[in-house]
């Protein structure tokens, strides 16, 4: 808060800056506030990090809110008007945890998107142990004569994600990778059931906790893996959707009042229908479907009766629409959570029931509810951290669900050596039941699923100079301080590493899944970031994640492909699609060892053929695809707008 410096009496006792700013928000969305049963829990007070500049120690939150990570700009182009930014430092607002929830006050909307998005960011940073960054902006330099000069691409740091709470007048909300912005829509409800909705009443996606968390996660994921919006196989976009849903879902468990009420209502059984496992109730109902937009546990059947969905391992080969396919992954993760939770509360239930494990009829004892809620929150936090941490163990391009399973297992194994509660087995079991396997392992044991250290005896000697180079660079890094400075440090490190690698490129041919045999082969040091983990003796270790990628032209016609790739065709035709490859390296700078080298080989003809058949295939047969093309056609400007519009879903 910016106050005028007043001369202070010498005996003033300094007041410390609070760690959090308390802000009110809807726990779910406004629709639950009109149900008596849920109204009491639907207003929550969220604790949002108090933002300040680490160098000057000054508070930085401005009206908007505009802070270090976010800028909320309330422009409503359909209505051709703007809404004044909320000033959360206003004393009256500070004194009452921000504005009270209200659909009719745009400033509350601004406050809520800020609170929810900040919470999502904090969850990410907490799990990864480092600061979060948005994807940079790329611009192609113009030659000043209307043309594009030699395609020189400039990378610009994007400090803040922009949020437009009222950007669209339609049942849609999406993250725009082009604009580094969340575009959230509003629309009149077309509910078939006016009990939930005033027909024609306005529904705001920015007031849905889930929608905001989901879209913010898209942006955070894009900041780490910007190639995950390219549909090179049916899993990539599905993963983007699934991951965004997973984060939104598990965020429900960080709201204690909600958790206790739902656990009491479900009598401890989180495998029965409950609000925690559902996403975007209001959105679902207001667009005319039966319950929530998505439910990790079950669905309403044709008679409107909720049914727990049974895992069907054949679905993975039948469902290709990204949201539907993603929901298979979400279900697998949620099943993992439920089984972990159940194993953690088994003893509590025995204690509470004198060993029978059978709960008596009637309400549960509040103490038991509290203990169960505690276990649920812990299990949820563990799973959420596990899911986020796994992102550091994923290949930079062409991710599959199977790769993600391997990343999950490896990441967790690296962090928690001793799996005495069987979490990892629970994960594998849940994935197996949904038919999700990696295709490159011999068995589904934890050992074979784990990424392996490179076994080639040549590998370490050849890579040693690079690791030493990195180690040299690290010593100059200052990891505290402002995000922009850290970004610049890493940007320079990437450039330096790139130049150095280029000078010795042939050394690495065949090691990284890259084609480096030709002189001046182009490649990109896609990402460089530190990852923290706990060593076997409990000490905190910093590792480096290095991603190197490459691209080449893909052709629908294998004959042309062969001409270009192997026969040195002199002037190749324009590419039909872009084929990417590369690797993620996890390097321990202390031992100078590459712990994992996760590759997607650019030289793999099999993978190229798979991408070709997926890109030209007919997997999306929605009505929309008849006229608007389908998601597997790459090169869409706004992939999430397309994806989300096609489902009228967030």
């Amino acid at each position, binding site marked *: 808060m910016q106050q005028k410096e007043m001369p202070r009496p010498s005996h003033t006792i300094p007041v410390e800056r609070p760690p959090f700013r308390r802000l009110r928000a809807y726990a779910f969305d406004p629709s639950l506030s009109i149900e008596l049963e849920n109204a009491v829990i639907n207003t929550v007070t969220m604790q949002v990090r108090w933002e300040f500049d680490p160098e000057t120690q000054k508070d930085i939150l401005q009206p908007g809110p505009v802070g270090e990570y976010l800028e909320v700009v309330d422009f409503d182009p359909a209505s051709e008007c703007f809404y004044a930014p909320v000033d959360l430092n206003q004393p009256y607002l500070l004194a009452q945890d921000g504005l009270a929830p209200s659909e009719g006050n745009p400033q509350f909307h601004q406050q809520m998107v800020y609170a929810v998005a900040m919470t999502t960011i904090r969850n990410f940073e907490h799990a990864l142990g480092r600061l979060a960054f948005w994807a940079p902006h790329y611009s192609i330099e113009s030659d000043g004569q209307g043309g594009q000069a030699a395609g020189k691409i400039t990378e610009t740091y994007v400090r803040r994600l922009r949020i437009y709470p009222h950007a669209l007048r339609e049942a849609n909300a999406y993250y725009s990778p082009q604009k580094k912005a969340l575009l959230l829509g509003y629309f*009149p409800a077309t509910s078939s059931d006016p009990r939930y909705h005033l027909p024609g009443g306005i529904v705001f996606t920015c007031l849905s906790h889930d929608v905001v968390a989901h879209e913010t996660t898209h942006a955070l994921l894009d900041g780490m893996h910007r190639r995950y919006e390219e549909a090179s196989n049916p899993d990539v976009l599905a993963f983007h959707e699934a991951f965004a849903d997973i984060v939104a879902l598990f965020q429900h468990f960080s709201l204690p009042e909600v958790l206790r009420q739902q656990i009491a209502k479900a009598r401890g059984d989180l495998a029965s229908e409950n609000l925690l496992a559902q996403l975007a109730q209001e959105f679902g109902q207001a667009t005319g479907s039966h319950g929530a937009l998505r439910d990790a546990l079950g669905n309403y059947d044709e008679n409107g009766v909720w049914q727990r969905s049974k895992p069907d391992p054949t679905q993975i080969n039948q*469902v290709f629409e990204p949201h539907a396919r993603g929901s298979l992954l979400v279900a697998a993760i949620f099943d993992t959570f439920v089984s972990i939770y159940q194993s953690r509360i088994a003893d509590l239930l025995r204690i509470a029931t004198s060993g029978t494990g059978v709960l008596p009829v009637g309400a549960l004892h509040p103490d038991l509810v509290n203990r169960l809620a505690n276990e649920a929150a812990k299990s949820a936090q563990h799973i959420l951290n596990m899911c986020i941490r796994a992102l550091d163990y994923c290949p930079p391009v062409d991710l599959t669900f199977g790769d993600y399973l391997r990343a999950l297992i490896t990441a967790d194994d690296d962090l928690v050596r001793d799996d005495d509660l069987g979490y990892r087995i629970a994960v594998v079991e849940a994935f197996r039941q949904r038919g999700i396997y990696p295709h490159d392992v011999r068995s589904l044991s934890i050992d074979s699923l784990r990424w392996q250290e490179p076994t080639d005896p040549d590998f370490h000697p050849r890579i040693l100079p690079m690791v030493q180079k990195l180690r040299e660079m690290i010593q100059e890094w200052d990891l505290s301080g402002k995000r922009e400075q850290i970004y610049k440090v890493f940007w320079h490190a990437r450039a330096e590493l790139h130049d150095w690698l280029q000078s010795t490129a042939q050394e690495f041919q065949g090691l990284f899944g890259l084609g480096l045999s030709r002189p001046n082969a182009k490649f990109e040091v896609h990402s460089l970031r530190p990852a923290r983990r706990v060593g076997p003796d409990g000490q905190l270790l910093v590792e480096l994640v290095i991603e190197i990628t490459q691209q080449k032209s893909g052709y629908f016609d294998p004959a042309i492909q062969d001409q270009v790739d192997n026969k040195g065709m002199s002037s190749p035709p324009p590419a039909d699609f872009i084929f990417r490859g590369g690797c993620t390296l996890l390097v321990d700078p202390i031992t100078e060892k590459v712990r994992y080298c996760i590759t997607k080989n650019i030289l793999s003809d099999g993978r190229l053929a798979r991408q070709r058949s997926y890109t030209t295939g*007919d997997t999306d047969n929605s009505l929309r695809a008849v006229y608007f093309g389908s998601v597997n056609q790459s090169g869409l400007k706004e992939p999430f707008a397309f994806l989300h519009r096609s489902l009228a879903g967030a």
Partner: protein
Amino acid sequence: MGTLNPPASGVTVRMYRQGLGDCFLLAFPTGQPGQAFYMLIDCGVIFGTQSAASKMQDVATDIEAATGGDIHLLVATHEHWDHLCGFLFAGDIFQRMHIHNLWLAWTEDPTDTLAQQLQAEFHANRAALRMALNLISDPDTAAPITNLLHFFGDPMAASDSGTGIANANLQNTGAALQAIRDFASKMNASPVYRHPGEGPLSLPQVNGLPGVSNARIYVLGPPHDETTLKDINPSTKGQEVYKQGAGASQDSTGGAGEALTASKAFFLAVLDEDQISSADKELHELSFPFDQHVRISSEEAKQNEFFRTYYGFDDPATPAGTGAEQSEKWKDEVWRRIDDDWLGAAGEFALQLDSYTNNTSLVLAFELVNTKKVLLFAADAQIGNWLSWDNLSWSLPDANGTPQTIRIGDLLARTVFYKVGHHGSVNATIRGYGSTPKGLELMTSPDLVAMIPVDRQMALKKRWNMPCEPVLQRLEDKTSQRVLRIDDNTPPRTQGGMSDVAWKALQANYEETKLYIQYTVTD
């Protein structure tokens, strides 16, 4: 070129090969050799087809020659360019022919209240979409919407009919329908508006022509129900069509004078203040998400430090596009602005509008009385239209005069010829829910032959998925590979994957030229 002669008993179907679009000429025998009953179902080709006018002239010329200039019954299934534009492009030829009877769907009936309500809404939405299109500056966003609007002809032509624009390049489907009505009125034939459930009907009587005794007609669609007409998408379960992914959810196109709907709210935002009818003024106010007093106009915002810093505007002193540098304050992060993004929703509404029109398709089934074989002409009917047939029943006396109830299942089981809906797209040939087969799955006759008026290359050019692969595959299974397509440029047709029996049966009744593909069903 010569007269099209039907078999002694049965019917001959000629599918013209003008491109992506429907034009079917049917010839029924009257019992009097040399005197056939000619029925024309639609005559059009997709907007943007090369030399469309001359192609349609060729088709019309052939129709005139084949029929001797008498069309005893003209059926216009629905108001889409690829079904009607021939009546404009070859207007001179149709003008000199004799149209003895005209059948249209009830949705074109000026005395039907629901039809008029839907028409009014439809024209308002079309006009608003055209406005939205004008506002979109990004060609990639505009292209698919333009393509959809082309189903109604030139999007820049006025949307109401009979504006009398002489230039065929600036005409639309409204003008085409008017032309058809004019052709018919020349013979004093006033349009008959058909309703679902009508039938079995005899083919209409024509002066001087013996009646047709071996065929009768069942009217299947369009349903006389707003909700069903607006049911255009596969349900979320997505089981009723031939597809692999889950389907899209739906949003109704909106009811006039009722609560605010999503499309209405969008369209009201597109229109200028003075274009909003007084009836809509109230809804217009409701379509704003917040009360008047919290709205800050763009003009005010331009003076506001916060919005200048974090949104930025085109500097009025140096208008964008002039090449002059914008002053620092105004030009900040232009790439993050969202002035046009909301208009992307127009695509969704254009899709709804287009599919709604497809759902108004007049769907007819012809039954040959001796063998009870059925020919199904589904026009471009979508899900809602197909599903509504379940509610229909017809009564027909059997040999003993006892009335028998006929339902859609009976007709489909006896279907030996299927004019595939909507050029073979995913949502216009249904399969049914889970264990309840519907649509194509009920067509069990071993004699089934299908015709798809589709041009894959043209569809690709428009980036449309027609015909859809799973639909095509199932059709090939069901017909023993006897799927006849406009774009099958392989005469003489070869046996391919067909069994000997199927191949023989096809060969005996089949004729193909550059201009048409023809198939005869004998009775």
